[in-house]
């Protein structure tokens, strides 16, 4: 019987993990090895140690423990009926690989997930054991994100939280009916119950830490989830409503959107085409508006049509074009909330404007110095020396403001 090497397993089990969008290693406690004498630190923002040609940051060693799976979720490359090559790491192999990579400064830590083998409990036990060995045996101080299995015993979840910085449970699809259709062994209600449970534990542990520094940590980096976009018929309004609900009810740190990727040998129940990546991008932008810019789902959707976001322009610009009466905004007088609604102006830019205008009334030249691109915001603002005039009423504003076609080739000029 041929034994497959660690490197072969890595190829298979990294390939299987690449459909997971999250690679975040931020937002946990500050931890370093100076005291423990071990290896690893975390703090503040995570570090992206490399970038793949798909533009994604490589921060964590993102792998599956195994891509064998008893379940048969149609959108998933690891589903039991798919005929991909299979492999399974042992617990110790994952521990060693993580340390080998970490010591060479390739990664911030480990993001471990797995197909379901034998039983949800068994699988979860293995995942927890990896985290335990890293933390306890090897005094590993790097970042650990465990994908947890909603069907597993809540007690295992509790243990996972002791070792991991972040836990996640994937919601998978925006509504229960799609889950039932495309992931027959899964149960939307159960997923949400586990998420709720997780959110509660994270909150409680945080509160206890406030009253006592000695209270045990529980997933200090919070919890997150991922939703697959374009595998079912849900529109953007539905997706954003679901996300909004998730943020509100379970205190999630992030909802990740992952454009459904056509997988080899896929089921005929799935679209053969991937949704445009731009759709995923627009959803992230809209998500941002929900969380940091005080927009409601309804407001965001004003900029779209028939429940879908506009793919050509970003959702903030789309909203502004539907609400031209609210512009132009006086840069020198408007409140923060209003400034945040100006298309092309981010949170940082707004902060700088608020600071700078305390010294003198801002002119265009001042803005040019502190904003990334003034051209974009010009139609929407007035300054001491600028008024957009009738621009806002012009019908071709949309065409003028839409971005030029993107340039993609790497080795051109």
């Amino acid at each position, binding site marked *: *019987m041929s034994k497959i090497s660690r490197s072969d397993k890595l190829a298979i089990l990294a390939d299987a993990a690449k459909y997971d969008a999250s690679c975040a290693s931020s937002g946990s406690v500050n931890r370093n090895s100076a005291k423990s004498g071990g290896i690893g630190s975390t703090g503040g923002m995570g570090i992206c*140690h490399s970038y793949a*040609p798909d533009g994604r940051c490589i921060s964590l060693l*993102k792998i599956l423990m195994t891509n064998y799976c008893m379940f048969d979720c149609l959108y998933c490359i690891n589903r039991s009926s798919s005929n991909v090559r299979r492999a399974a790491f042992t617990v110790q192999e994952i521990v060693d690989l993580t340390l080998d*990579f970490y*010591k*060479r400064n390739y990664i911030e830590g480990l993001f471990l997930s797995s197909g379901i083998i034998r039983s949800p409990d068994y699988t979860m036990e293995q995942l927890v054991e990896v985290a335990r060995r890293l933390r306890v045996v090897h005094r590993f101080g790097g970042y650990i994100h465990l994908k947890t299995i909603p069907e597993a015993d809540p007690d295992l979840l509790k243990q996972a939280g002791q070792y991991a910085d972040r836990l996640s449970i994937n919601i998978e699809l925006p509504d229960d009916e799609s889950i039932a259709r495309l992931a027959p062994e899964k149960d939307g209600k159960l997923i949400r119950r586990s998420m709720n449970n997780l959110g509660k534990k994270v909150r409680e542990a945080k509160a206890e830490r406030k009253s006592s520094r000695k209270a045990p940590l529980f997933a200090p980096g919070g919890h997150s989830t991922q939703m697959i976009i374009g595998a079912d018929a849900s529109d953007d309004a539905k997706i954003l409503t679901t996300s909004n609900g998730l943020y509100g009810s379970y205190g999630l740190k992030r909802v990740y959107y992952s454009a459904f990727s056509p997988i080899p040998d896929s089921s005929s129940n799935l679209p053969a085409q991937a949704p445009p990546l731009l759709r995923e991008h627009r959803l992230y932008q809209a998500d941002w508006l929900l969380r940091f810019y005080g927009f409601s789902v309804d407001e965001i959707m004003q900029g779209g049509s028939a429940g879908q976001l506009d793919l050509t322009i970003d959702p903030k610009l789309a909203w502004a074009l539907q609400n031209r009466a609210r512009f132009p905004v006086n840069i020198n007088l408007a409140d923060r909330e209003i400034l945040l609604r100006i298309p092309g102006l981010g949170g940082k830019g707004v902060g700088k404007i608020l600071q700078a205008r305390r010294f003198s009334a801002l002119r265009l030249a001042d803005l040019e110095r502190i904003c990334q691109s003034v051209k974009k915001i010009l139609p929407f603002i007035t300054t001491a020396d600028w008024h957009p005039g009738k621009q806002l009423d012009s019908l071709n504003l949309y065409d003028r403001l839409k971005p030029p076609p993107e340039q993609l080739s790497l080795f051109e000029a």
Partner: protein
Amino acid sequence: MNMVTGDIQGAYRITLASEVDRDGWRDHARRLLQAGIAPEQVTWTVEGRRDAGELDLSPSAILPAQNSDQPSRPVRISKTLLSLINTALLHSNADRFNLAYRILWRAQSLPGLHRNPADPDMLKLNRYAKAIRRDIHKMHAFVRFRKIGDSAGREQFVAWFEPDHHITEAVAPFFRNRFTGMDWLIVTPGASIAWDGHKLSVGPGGCKDDVPQEDVIEAEWRTYYANIFNPARVKIGAMKSEMPMKYWKNLPEAELIPSLLEQAGTRVDAMTAHTPEDVLFDDKMDKPAANLPASLDQLYALLEQRADAPMEKFSDRLVRGSGPDRADLMIIGEQPGDQEDREGKPFVGPAGQLLDRALAEAGIDRQQTFLTNAVKRFKYTQRGKRRLHETPNVGEINYYRWWVEQEIRLVDPGLVVALGATAARSLTGRPVKIARRRGEILADAEGRSILITVHPSYLLRIPDEQGRQVEYAKFMRDLQVARDFVN
């Protein structure tokens, strides 16, 4: 006594001890300020800096000491501004000391200066500080250690890195806190830093050749890099802005980028290629006998007599199907194995035992099931005393197809289960992707129901326990579908 000697048109030249002599700058700046010397009168340079000093013939300034008869002016500076300056002073641009002194000077009469992001001096200072933060961040990210040995229970690692600015010493604590448990050395052109478990030390700069060019783990790292990349989403702009090409030469994974991009298109095509919904059944079949046999006994007797059966590599013995003459469920395997050949019965070897167990667990009564094979004789290669199973080829499968067809006609089951590719091919006349077709009730040209699943011997061949468990569970699920269908 220290004297002001900036006699050439009031110009003072300050020479700092090194590019990172921030303490020196602070010292001098304080004293210049207290002596009321305006920024325009001061030139800053660094000891041993190649491009400085030669054209500048003014004597090094000897700083004005605190003049005892002049009350020294208190230097006012906010903490925020000081820390910003501290960061910006690591910038490689030679004008940074000047800029910082000018800002310090202006801040004395304009205490809110640093809060004004639109001020041109502050803008520049902020830009410098930002470049430093980015450079530090990139160094945290892109240093790649290579292992050079183990000693006294600690591993030793070395790295080469080329920062844009004078940040090497500033990043040392970060690396110490992160890699406390190992010994390391980071060499850059300007300086090197090292940690031995007890103390951090700073040394002179070096060159790339000082550092080993390989580490065994790099191959695995590249494997990871190549496989975590999703070819369905190429976004080079995003990659290059975060990982500028100037860093690529020192990143072991970056050499893969061109080939990954080149192959991306082909890989995506392979991912999206849906094999066309092929016709599953092909009912062309030889019809060797004019009269259809009336019973199973007659069928097997006829088959035994035929002289045209493929015999090369085959055992002579014909292994008949077993089970009741009429059955609701018929299971077809590949061919008899060594043990089946000896006993003359199907499914008595290891695979048969596994099948027995699975049938029992699925609630299927073996006694009520008709078991047979797609190929009726054992094909093998002799290896010493052992006879090794050999897979029958398409011609051999086709030879027996009509006979299998007759078995089905006579037993008349409600469902035929095909175990593995040979049985599936025998029933459909075509190659079948098991993974794609398994577990579904399919109808053949005659309207008979067929279910395809794996052969139990496949389960026996899976090397690891976890895989076997999963595959067994899937096999069980298929059998349960079969059971529910006939019940």
